[in-house]
């Protein structure tokens, strides 16, 4: 194995893994801390925890909701998520690298199934890219980083899929390096981009509900800060 590949699958992988785990743990910790502090500051601390949990779970498995709104976009997005999660976490080759670095892994899923999921993922990413490029509403909402993340994902899926094909025309080692570097870049971007929703998602609906529980004198204090103790007239 070329030296750069050993590096990518060993120390570089371990660095990226540590970086993403610590980065995401930091986000979970800070957000949880913020939510708990906000609850303590709120004038009314009663929260509908059950309802919040139910809504969060329903959106985690949104099978009955995808068709209701922007069906094409929603199904593409859901396919992409399934592809990322299952292929990245259950491909034998990925698990071998994990085992080699941290000493343990888990059961893999059969490659033909993952090949199908990879293709679905590629279709999903392509559809999302086309939406952002050609649907006016989506284009207006999109920034460079939205395209960048989709392009990195597309690189990862395409290169991974090609690498496993006997008819792959691109030199295997170069393709694998491309695949690995893109994967590591994506992982390291996770704590700083919207990919952070992979860990913050369960806290968003709770956070929204908490934010509607205002601080008792927040309005008055704001006016004092802006206008001094004499306040202001309406």
């Amino acid at each position, binding site marked *: 194995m070329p030296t750069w590949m050993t590096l990518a699958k060993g120390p570089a992988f371990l660095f990226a893994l540590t970086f993403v785990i610590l980065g995401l743990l930091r*986000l979970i910790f800070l*957000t949880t801390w*913020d*939510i708990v*502090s*906000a609850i303590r500051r*709120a*004038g*009314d601390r009663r929260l509908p925890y059950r309802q919040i949990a139910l*809504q*969060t779970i329903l*959106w985690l498995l*949104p099978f009955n*909701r995808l068709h*209701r*709104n*922007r069906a094409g*976009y*929603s199904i593409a*997005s859901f396919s992409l998520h399934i592809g990322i999660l299952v292929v990245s976490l259950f491909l034998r080759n990925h698990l071998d690298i994990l085992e080699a670095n941290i000493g343990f892994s888990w059961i893999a899923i059969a490659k033909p199934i993952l090949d199908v999921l990879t293709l679905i993922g590629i279709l999903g990413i392509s559809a999302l890219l086309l*939406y952002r490029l050609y*649907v*006016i*509403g*989506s*284009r*207006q*909402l*999109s*920034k460079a980083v*939205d395209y960048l993340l989709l392009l990195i994902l597309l690189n990862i899926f395409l290169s991974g899929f090609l690498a496993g094909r006997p008819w792959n025309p691109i030199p295997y080692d170069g393709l694998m390096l491309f695949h690995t570097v893109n994967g590591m870049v994506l992982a390291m971007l996770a704590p*700083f981009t*919207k990919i*952070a*929703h992979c860990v*913050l*998602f369960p*806290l*968003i*609906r709770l*956070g*929204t509900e*908490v*934010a*509607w*529980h*205002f*601080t*008792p*004198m*927040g*309005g*008055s*204090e*704001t*006016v004092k*800060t*802006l206008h001094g103790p004499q306040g202001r*007239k*309406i």
Partner: protein
Amino acid sequence: MTTPSNTTSTPRQPYFYHIESSAIPELNNRAEKFLAAFAAILQHSNYRFLIELYAKTSAKCGRCAESCQIYQASRDPHDIPCYRTSLLLDVYRQYYSDDGKRFSRLVSEDPLSNEKIDEMAELFYRCTACRRCTIECPMGIDHGLIAHLGRYVLSEAGIAPKGLVVSVREQLEGATGNTSAIPLPALLDNIEFLQEELQDITGKLVNFPVDQEGSEYIFFPAVSDYLMEADTLMGNAAALQAAGVSWTIGSKYFDGINYGLFYNDWALERIIQKLVEEAHRLQAKKILIGECGHAARSARQFVPTFANGRELPVVSILELTQQAAQQGKLRLKKDAITERVTYHDPCNIARSGWIINQPRQLLRSFVEDFVEMRPGGRENYCCGGGGGLVSLDEIYEFRMNVAGKVKAEQIKASGAQIVATPCANCKKQLRELVDYYKLPVQIVGVHDLVLRAIDL
């Protein structure tokens, strides 16, 4: 449907048309004022962590667009809820988030401009704050909350619609202490008239008690009902008499309206404190809110926060009347209403509240031909005047052509002759809508129909 204009959207206009002219000269440095207000609000509220969370997770997938009736009518990308939200999130990222500030310096982002403030001022008041988009957001981002916060920051920077500001000023600092500027003697005259009128209708003496200490309920309708909704108020009083509960109107404060919910937390806080103060002055046990969506929601949601340890339960008149009917205390003549009736859910008590089935059960018990508007309940469409927009006469064309267009189509599709809705703001907007679209429909309150069906 008869559409008075060929265009579905009105041109977007500068916002100066709806703020008080006296505020305009002070607004040359509005970006600076906006940032100062934003910083102060973040310091004293619970918003900061949520904006940070939204800024980190907003995927801008655009699913919210198709559930927003404003975007459905205008097809203007600026009306997509997550676009509007991103305006405020971008300011937060650039000026208040640690990661964002570093990034901003790195790429030399342009400072916040007056033009950006103008865009926010316009777009936050093209939103009816109905929160329908929130149901469809996979992430759970509440664009209604962001619109609320955006308006709050703007108002502390001196930018708020005069239609809201003038009303709140009279309510909190004016001589009459209510949004409709009704002096107490005029209110008492009005009450006397309502009692006489109600006696003519029912043949019974029905009291509107004032300042009765120790009553179970202190009643706060939308004060505009005293001027414009006599049937609603008479229906309220008749239902309360039939239910056999003790209740009173407070002479020191009698207005349920709380426009603070629409644009300013300081006003929201002070108005809630006035409700609570009057309830305690008269030693009432519960606060009873009349037919008004935002009044019921703001009281129910914020009395526990702003009551300063003197919290009282908040009940909607719809709950009370429905319970009385269910318990057999309130007798309603079956099939008293023969016209086809539909029900419009006020967003503040349906999607953001707890009142969906109660009015339906009540109406079905005496309406021969009740039909649902679809979608309804939690997924209803806003009347188009929500979030205080109905008080802004300057945007009448927008409310008719854009914000209320979907609702007008829904009403027409229902085939109803009567639309019942328990909200003063919804009623005003819907009446204007049916006039505008020339729909042969009557807009009434739920208790207007209760009054026609009640057997005292």
